[in-house]
């Protein structure tokens, strides 16, 4: 299937921007589940999901797919920290969604559970969001401020 037909089927009005690193499109009102089902039917391959925070709130979700060697980058935005899960259609997306929660506390609707992947089970999700104001500091001692549980332990409060 050609990339153009994919946009038509998804009723995306914007056109592909073709670059050296693949096809790019911005589709603010994208139905991600319809996209997932369509790309499954055309034997595309899941590449990954890139989540970036949008200045002023919300997130930009960039879905990357491989269609017979072409990289399709389909971007959409969500105003709040909630979007639809596609892990039931594409098991391959499971870890990427769990990771997005770890980093940005983004929640995925339609999942039974969304356990931590990189963080520990007891950690609060959204590590990147929580530490946004923190710069790169060469002294690791300062990083202790990030993690509330570690602060307690260093103070000798370990149970």
């Amino acid at each position, binding site marked *: 299937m050609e990339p153009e037909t994919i946009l038509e089927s998804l009723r995306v009005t914007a056109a592909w921007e073709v670059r050296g690193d693949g096809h790019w499109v911005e589709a603010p009102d994208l139905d991600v589940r319809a996209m997932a089902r369509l790309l499954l039917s055309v034997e595309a391959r899941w590449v990954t999901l890139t989540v970036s925070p949008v200045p002023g709130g919300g997130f930009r979700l960039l879905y990357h797919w491989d269609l017979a060697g072409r990289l399709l980058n389909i971007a959409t935005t969500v105003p709040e920290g909630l979007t639809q899960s596609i892990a039931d259609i594409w098991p391959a997306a499971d870890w990427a969604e769990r990771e997005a929660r770890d980093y940005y506390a983004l929640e995925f609707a339609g999942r039974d559970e969304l356990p931590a992947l990189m963080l520990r089970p007891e950690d609060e999700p959204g590590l990147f969001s929580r*530490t946004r104001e923190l710069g790169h500091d060469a002294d*690791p001692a300062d990083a202790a401020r990030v993690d509330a549980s570690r602060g307690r332990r260093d103070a000798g409060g370990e149970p």
Partner: protein
Amino acid sequence: MRLIDSLVRTSRRRSPWLFHLNAGSCNGCDIELVACLTPRYDVEQLGIRLEGSPRHADIIVVSGPVTRTTRAALETVYAQVPDPKVVVALGSCPASCNVFAGSPTVEGPLDRILPVDVYVPGCPPRPDAIIAGIAEAIALLAEGGHA
């Protein structure tokens, strides 16, 4: 008595068994440690063995900047190695956290968590440097470790 003492010292020098613990390493140091076992370097000549169980070990070799999740394991393993024991920090990460310094999920450097006896600098250190570091650790071990 002196004979026994010197026998024990010699045996510790001739039979150091390692336990390797990856505390969030990138694999670079780990793979060079494995290379030490292979035909070109063959540390078994020196009686060095890599053991699977910490209870069998004399020397704890730690690589990586110590991530939050590996810290508990590090402490458990340290307690499981019977005395006398020596801790070797393999590579730059356990010494200084290297490029990972400042990460919110890194708790290193290693000397905040365990007493470190020998540092083997390098990113990663060459097998020759690793063997030299272990030789340093062996000398400490013969004198009864750091404990």
